[in-house]
């Protein structure tokens, strides 16, 4: 260990030292020659403008920067000015900050020395595993881990400038002692311990966890201790590390709306990969709305037939399964939401021709502004038993496709009382809505083998306010609170004992701030929320700005979720809208550190953005590249 530390470490600059000494001598010579020449040249031209090009003196001189760690900060210098050549990523990894994202919640100790590694020289050894199923998943997750490393390795620019010696083998040993269920469940223990240490010419990484998901998080953290050194043209890994880690909140989500605009499967898979890189664990798939219904269910294919935008804008069950499979290996549950009873549209218009009566009312009715919040309108018919039969089949197929049976999302927001009043003037529409919700819950239980999911989410709405809230069962329902953070509803729901997932519209809605897409409104929600604002929102803390006020006893905040609604977003623009802002939320929910967007957070998030790009995610930059090159200088 000592030997390694000396040879490699303090580390990887030492690797470059010999080369650098030679380089230095050469550069000094060159610089001296240049200066002399320049002086001569300058004298010649002393009073007149330079007509002889400087160029002839300095051709072939390319920019080359080196970074040195001084006072726990990486400083950029021209390579010629120092004796060692160190790349920015290597300096960042070895200088002060952990560069981990999200920051672990337990003790962390990291070596300040690095060794070269190769993606092809990693091996997996499963030490203990509660089931073959878990072992299989560990192997597949390990393959994904290696794919990520290979993708990183591929970014190597060919001009290898330093020789850093032979790559170390890496042995990854995983022990899972606990659940034999590989799914991300509401009570899954996501904690893990990671230790990395050198053993002769091998690095040994030990990951212990109580679930497959925990072990996967350990692999994710391990991958963050490995980086590409562009000057060495090689992957480097810290030579030693220990990390103990567990999330602060157990529901850490991102919502994607694929109904307002359709997103191809590839974009969804990439989003899931990016979520995994940040240890988010819930992909909330708002798959249908009044605008479209792209999910082609075997149990109700008419919905997509009538509701999809077109033949190219459909998710087949095979595609959904592939997404679910990918997500599972990434430690993510796929929570499909078929919103009801409002936010439905032409997908439900085929009832009469199939002899089922009206499944929905107000579908695409005009003027729409009288019956819904945005065009087109549509609401299920709460008195038609066929609606519930269909819902039961939809719910059953969703549970079967996703394998998620402990959490479900019924939708349930923005019901137009006026739409229903036109057809049911004998009943208070709020009672209809409540009745609908109870019946939907009932068929959900039947669809789930007679058992209510542990938490069935509803969007906050008039129904989740008094006097209706009291009529909902706190044991069954959870509330996804999307009102503004200062609205009383967040408190009210929690005070009443409901589990809640927080998605405050004024902070965690990623679609806000892009103006209105219609003539007749003066703007969608706004303004745009920066990653810093997203990061600093801690509604569960007393003193927090924009918080919910005094924290109540027994509040059950399950976690939070960023919402990417897609009225003004389509394939191609997704990544830059969602990332890196959602990474900021991921750390808030995983680590929930008391400090806000401090300097360290900028630097680590900047590194995380580079990781996301290496995975093919088009994340937006945090700032000018100069600020990346000069950490702390822009703060």
């Amino acid at each position, binding site marked *: 260990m000592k030997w390694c530390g000396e040879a490699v470490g303090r580390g990887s600059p030492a690797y470059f030292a010999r080369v650098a000494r030679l380089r230095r001598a050469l550069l000094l010579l060159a610089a001296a020659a240049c*200066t002399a020449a*320049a002086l001569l040249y*300058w004298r010649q031209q002393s009073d007149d403008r*330079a007509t002889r*090009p*400087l*160029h002839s003196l*300095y*051709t072939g*001189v*390319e*920019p080359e920067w080196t970074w040195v760690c001084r006072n726990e900060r990486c400083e950029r210098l*021209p390579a010629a000015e120092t004796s060692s050549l160190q790349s920015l990523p290597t300096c960042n990894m070895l200088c002060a900050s952990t560069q981990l994202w999200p920051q672990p919640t337990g003790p962390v100790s990291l070596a300040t020395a690095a060794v070269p590694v190769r993606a092809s020289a990693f091996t997996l050894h499963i030490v203990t595993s509660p089931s073959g199923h878990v072992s299989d998943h560990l192997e597949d997750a390990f393959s994904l881990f290696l794919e990520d490393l290979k993708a990183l390795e591929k970014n190597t620019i060919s001009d290898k400038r330093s020789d850093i010696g032979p790559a170390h083998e890496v042995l990854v040993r995983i022990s899972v002692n606990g659940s034999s269920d590989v799914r991300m469940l509401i009570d899954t223990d996501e904690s893990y311990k990671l230790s990395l240490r050198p053993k002769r010419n091998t690095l040994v990484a030990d990951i212990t966890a109580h679930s497959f998901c925990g072990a996967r998080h350990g692999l994710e953290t391990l991958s963050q201790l490995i980086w590409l050194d562009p000057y060495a043209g090689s992957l480097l890994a810290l030579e030693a590390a220990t990390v103990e880690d567990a999330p602060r909140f157990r529901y850490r989500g991102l919502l994607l709306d694929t109904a*307002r*605009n359709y997103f191809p499967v590839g974009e969804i898979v990439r989003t899931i990969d990016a979520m995994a890189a940040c240890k988010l664990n819930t992909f909330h798939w708002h798959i249908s709305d*009044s*605008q479209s219904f792209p999910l082609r269910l*075997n149990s*109700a*294919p*008419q919905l997509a*037939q*009538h509701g999809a*935008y077109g*033949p*190219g*804008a*459909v998710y087949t069950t095979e595609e959904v399964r592939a997404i679910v499979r990918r997500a599972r290996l990434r430690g993510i549950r796929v929570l499909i939401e078929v919103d009801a009873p409002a936010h439905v*549209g032409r997908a439900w218009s085929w009832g009469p021709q199939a002899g089922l009566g009206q499944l929905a009312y107000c579908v695409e009715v005009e003027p*729409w502004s009288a019956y819904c919040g945005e065009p*087109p309108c549509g609401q299920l018919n709460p008195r038609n*038993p066929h609606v519930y039969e*269909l819902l039961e089949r939809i719910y059953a197929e969703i549970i079967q496709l996703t394998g998620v049976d402990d959490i479900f999302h019924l939708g349930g927001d923005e019901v137009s009382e006026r739409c229903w009043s036109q057809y049911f003037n004998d009943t208070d529409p709020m009672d209809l809505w409540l009745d609908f919700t109870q019946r939907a819950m009932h068929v959900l239980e039947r669809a789930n083998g007679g058992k209510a999911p542990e938490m069935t989410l509803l969007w906050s709405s008039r129904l989740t306010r008094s006097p209706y809230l009291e009529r909902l069962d706190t044991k069954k329902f959870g509330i996804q609170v999307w009102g503004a953070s200062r609205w009383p509803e967040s408190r009210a729901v929690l005070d009443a004992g409901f589990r809640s997932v927080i998605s405050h519209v004024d902070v965690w809605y990623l679609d806000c701030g*892009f*103006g*209105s*897409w*219609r*003539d007749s409104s003066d703007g969608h929600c706004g*303004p745009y929320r*920066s990653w810093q604002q997203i990061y600093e929102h801690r509604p569960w803390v007393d003193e927090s700005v924009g918080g919910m006020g005094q924290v109540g006893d027994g509040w059950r905040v399950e976690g939070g979720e960023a919402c990417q609604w*897609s*009225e*003004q977003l*389509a394939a*191609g*623009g997704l990544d*830059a*809208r969602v990332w890196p802002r959602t990474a900021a939320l991921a750390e808030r929910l995983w680590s929930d550190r008391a400090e806000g967007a401090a300097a360290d957070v900028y630097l680590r998030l900047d590194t995380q953005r580079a990781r996301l*790009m290496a995975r093919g995610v*088009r994340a*937006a*930059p945090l*700032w*000018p*590249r*100069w600020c990346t090159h*000069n950490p702390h*200088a*822009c703060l």
Partner: protein
Amino acid sequence: MVIVVIGSVNLLKFLFHEILQVRMDWHWTLIVVLVQLAQGNGGNGVDPTPDLYEPSWVYKCEPEEGCHRSERTKPTAANSSFMVFDSLDVCRTVCGHFGGLWPRPVTAVLSTQTVKMHPNFLRFTLLDAPVETSEILVEMTHVITANLLAECNGNVTEMVATPVIVNIAVKSPSLELTWDTDEQYLLDVENTVDNIVVHISAETVYGARHALESFTQLIAPEFSNQYQCGLRIVTGAKIRDRPVYKHRGLVLDTSRNFIPMVDIKRTIDGMAATKMNVFHWHVTDSQSFPLESRRVPQFTKYGAYSANEIYSTEEVRESIRYAQIRGIRVVIEIDSPAHAGNGWQWGKEYGFGDLAVCVNARPWRHLCIEPPCGQLNPANPAMYRVLRDLYRDIAELVPKPALFHVGGDEVYLGCWNSSEEIVSYMKNKGFDTDIEGFIRLWAEFHAKALQIWDEETMAVGGQQQHVLIWSSELTQPNRIENYLDKNRYVIEVWEPLSSPLLIQLLRMGYKTISIPKDIWYLDHGFWGKTKYSNWRRMYEHVLPRDPNVLGGEVAMWSEYVDAQALDTRVWPRAAAVGERLWSDPRGGGGGFAGAEPRLQRLRARLRARGLRPDAVSPEWCAQHDARCY
């Protein structure tokens, strides 16, 4: 059960027959879902009749509204109207007064009929064009052909042998692209018995290019499935067109973050699609200096982010040509005397003294608007010598007559005031060291820089031209006439809408380019208290109609954008400004309702050409024109 199966087989046959008859939309997969058949659902259960569970629509062109999605009905003689289309793109191309044209031409008469065509049978004839123009015209037609192929993802599978003959007539032999270039054109499409004949007539090659662009916009793709695609062209058209403003630009900042050349070219493609004509390249700033200078390689050595983040002289030359073929002039801006730092910090090392001051100074807050700081050192004659070398490189690079942008914004007097060298230089010159004294120093810099630019321009055989400069303290009405000659400078006014400066400068007789930052800055809405302008807000803004308003620009500053986010920030919003500057539609038909369907078509076109424009609405709205009010 047997009966059911037989029944469904019959149905299958029928439906298959229908597929063959009716052209289906793209991504058609011949999967018939018969899942529910076997499932015992009980008497009152949902028992869907066997059906093709594939979404499939037609689009109807409704007069005064646009294209609307509707159910595909069984084809009968009664409902087979020519205003019903399988392809939304084809519907848009013929529906409405201006079809799928963006920007809107001055006048257009379009047929509602279309016929199939294939790029292999597209022939361009330079009917009446000076020999000097033929090379560039040929290159322009190659772009057009490539764009048409792109509409079908590069493969037009529907073969039709109908010849499409495009006759191009150009009067002027000049290839100059300036504010005086005549960009108007006439475009006629006629359908004869066995071919389509297109007549293009323009004063200049650039007018002809715009005509060719409009010609491609009379053509739309029609996918019958994922792999089968054909093109349809409007059978008749008469278009008369000319721009309202002669300067229609986009600023791209490649200094805060580097933008690879491939992304710049794609941005130029987008500009060409909207007939914008100035690519204003804010290539350097205090953060980085990615532009190679043959004479002063230190600029990139000390200023580029890395060896891979440099625009070589060859690449710049090629991009200028690339833009020219697309009717776009590249205007290079070397921002000065402020916004210059990295790339200029090597003077001392080479015995030239400080070429710039405050470079990367910390703390930065009193020395510049954003880190890192840096301002050229006007007290150092060596700085002017280096600047001259840089200007010479640029003068050699850009086509004549050269249009250059000297920057000239956001000078922090406090930075200069912090330099003893500069303060003592001012004292020797007899300048006061108050605000007006520093303003004089600033103006002196621009005077010297202009003189150098003129000399270098003329040394490479050019003539004195206007240069562009940003509005600033120096261009305030009480100062500008003392310092900036209205016959030499065109002022690019970026003050917010509420500022009277634009009107004041016009009254004083200055030529201007308008770029109101609170409307036409594409980076706003992502930082500080700035507000995002969506395409509607950008489109709504109108410029004064004054001969001294040469036009406008839309600006993509890159603090929070690099190649990853570029397209979605720029498009389709920049296109809204493109139409404002080309057509400047006012009154009836100029509103969003008239523009949005055409913009949706433009967005599809940009996607086909490889750009990643943002969505402007849910797709439902794109499928139901005028329903999302």
